[in-house]
């Protein structure tokens, strides 16, 4: 294990990698500081740029964007009272009042350190949990794998959005979209309708950018009528920054820090649930555990610590199932998986055995990303505030252009750009009709894995009962049924949906 880390550090600590990671962290902070632009969108748009890097550098850069993004949402949350991303919603509850009371530096400082320690704790759990889990997972046969994916998809579908059935429909649409193109075993074309555009299938990147960037931007256009932007609630005072006291402020609350981080790790590891849920749950848990729950919401440091460590720790959590099982914990992890797949690296339990250098580089990359985030935010937080002032009428067309370029960069095909349009419209319509998009994206990535395993299982033996007589497979299927039943019952009582993407 130690030499694994040595390899990881050697891979990451190269000038080119550090430079692109630095840029990635800055880009992540900037992107998520802008209200309406999510972390997923930032990562999706980074993906095409990383095709041209070696795999380790590419994934390290995206981890930088991820870690930066999980922190950046806090800037506008604390100073403007507007969450920069859905994962910073709970941060507005206490960081904003604290800033309003005249201590914006403290709100940001505590948030930064809480994010840093949250990421750190999540890395520790990741390093401890992923390798043993992968060893167990290697023993899984195609039956177990298929059942595991069925279970993962039901959890994803049930957790996000407001209706379990719509979640399932979205997930299945994703799985269906992935069947377009040639089939994974026989290479016979499916659903291509003799269109050249579809002959190689839907490029995963077009789906990602269409669903997460284009449809999201269209949603932003829609909001442009109602509010003319930010700025009114801006804190004009000079932000005073005293790192050491803020560090003490944060680590003097170890129970809160560790509890919130573990909440984040756990929620991050559950497929489909991510930072947008974790920050709310962590905040809620901290309030319940507090001796003075009524003070929450008035600008107490506990609230900031809980929310920011809760969302940042999902980074490590989401990577656990991705590294150990090849099942992404969130849309962001799906993008990371896609970037490895572009380089021809198969992601699954064998990743640990076949490409240990990649796995250790991910561990180290996450750590270095967190360090860079700390350095960058502490030294230049003030400047990031300026990006929240860039008007949307400039950002929207610019990012749309970038979407087109990004999709083109994968295969150098103009047809892919045209596909992007249709996927973007599909994503937008589904979002308007209240269908969650995260299950769709995870369906696209998990569908082919499910099909391959199902067909492999039946080629070994045509006996369908093996799915329920092999104990592990049966357990996963039972869990799938249980989770559906539980969620269907739970959701009978209507309640506000939690954020759909991270």
């Amino acid at each position, binding site marked *: 294990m130690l030499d694994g880390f040595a390899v990881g550090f050697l891979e990451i600590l190269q000038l080119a990698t550090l430079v692109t990671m630095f840029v990635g962290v800055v880009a992540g902070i900037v992107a998520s500081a802008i209200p309406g632009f999510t972390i997923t969108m930032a990562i999706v748009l980074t993906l095409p740029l990383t095709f041209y890097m070696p795999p380790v550098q590419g994934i390290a850069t995206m981890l930088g964007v991820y870690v930066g993004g999980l922190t950046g949402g806090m800037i506008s949350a604390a100073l403007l009272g507007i969450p920069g991303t859905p994962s910073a919603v709970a941060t507005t509850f206490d960081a904003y009042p604290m800033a309003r009371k005249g201590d914006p530096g403290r709100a940001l400082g505590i948030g930064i350190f809480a994010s840093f320690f949250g990421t750190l704790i999540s890395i520790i759990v990741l390093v401890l949990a992923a390798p043993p889990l992968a060893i167990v997972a290697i023993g899984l046969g195609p039956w177990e794998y298929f059942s595991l994916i069925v279970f993962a998809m039901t959890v994803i579908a049930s957790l996000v959005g407001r209706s379990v059935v719509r979640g399932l429909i979205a997930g299945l*649409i994703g799985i269906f979209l992935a069947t377009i193109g040639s089939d994974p075993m026989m290479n*016979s074309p*499916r659903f291509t309708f003799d269109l050249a555009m579809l002959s190689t299938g839907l490029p995963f990147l077009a789906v990602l950018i269409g669903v997460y960037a284009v449809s999201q931007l269209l949603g932003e*256009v*829609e909001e442009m009528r109602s509010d003319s932007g930010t700025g009114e609630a801006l804190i004009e005072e000079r932000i005073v920054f005293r790192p050491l006291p803020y560090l003490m402020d944060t680590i003097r609350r170890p129970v809160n820090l560790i509890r919130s981080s573990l909440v984040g790790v756990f929620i991050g590891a559950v497929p489909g649930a991510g930072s947008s849920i974790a920050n709310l749950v962590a905040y809620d848990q901290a309030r319940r555990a507090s001796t003075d729950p009524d003070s929450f919401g008035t600008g107490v440091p506990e609230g900031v610590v809980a929310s920011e460590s809760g969302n940042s720790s999902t980074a490590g959590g989401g990577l656990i199932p991705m590294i150990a099982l090849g099942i992404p914990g969130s849309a962001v992890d799906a993008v990371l998986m896609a970037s490895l797949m572009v380089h021809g690296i198969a992601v699954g339990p064998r990743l640990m055995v076949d490409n240990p250098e990649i796995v250790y580089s991910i561990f180290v990359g996450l750590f270095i990303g967190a360090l860079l985030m700390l350095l960058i935010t502490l030294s230049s937080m003030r400047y990031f505030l300026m990006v929240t002032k860039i008007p949307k009428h400039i950002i929207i067309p610019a990012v749309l*252009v970038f979407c087109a*370029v990004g999709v083109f*960069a994968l295969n*150098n095909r103009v047809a892919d750009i045209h596909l992007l349009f249709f996927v973007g419209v599909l994503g937008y319509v589904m979002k308007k009709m209240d269908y969650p998009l995260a299950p769709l994206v995870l369906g696209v990535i998990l569908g082919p894995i499910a099909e391959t395993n199902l067909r492999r299982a039946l080629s070994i033996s045509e006996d369908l009962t093996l799915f329920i007589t092999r104990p592990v497979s049966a357990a996963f299927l039972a869990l799938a049924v249980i989770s559906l039943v539980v969620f269907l019952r739970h959701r009978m009582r209507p309640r506000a949906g939690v954020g759909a993407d991270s």
Partner: protein
Amino acid sequence: MSDSHSDNASGRSDRPEDYALQPKAIAGDSALLQFAFNLLMLLAFAYLFWEAMALPESRWEPLGAGTFPRIVLGLLMFLNVVMIIQTARQALSELRYGPRALFDVALRTTLEFRLVFSVLGAFALFLLLIRPLGFLIAAFLFAFGVQLLLGPRTWRNLVISAIIALVLSVGLQVLFAQVLHVFLPRGPFS
């Protein structure tokens, strides 16, 4: 959001359905629209299912190319039927408002979303023009046009928009060519 349409066509003033006449509510809230959407999906998936029946079987394995898509499409059809049954009653009650009121809602929704449709149209045009005009010109026109569409109509914005569009289109082309060796479509003019 406040201007709810009070004189509904059928003259009924029942409480539960009046949100149907508020086009500002999320589209997902209208049962009729949901009903239509699910019906449309059901038809589409049924067609694709029929299409999947023609996919080849395999001699080497029990499942051919078509079985898995048929399972997925079958489930999709089933779930859409579930949704249709769930929303049918409400959808019918929304229908009682009569065609005029519904048309009104549709019209107002369209007006509400006209900016989205305009941007979407511009985006489609941009994507279609990348090949014939080249990336540089198409991206410039798109970025410039949409900034003017969404931003304030002032001389200052006109100038800023032009500069940003220029930097964006030239910048991306150069960045991708120089750093990543991706050559964006050049078109006939360069």
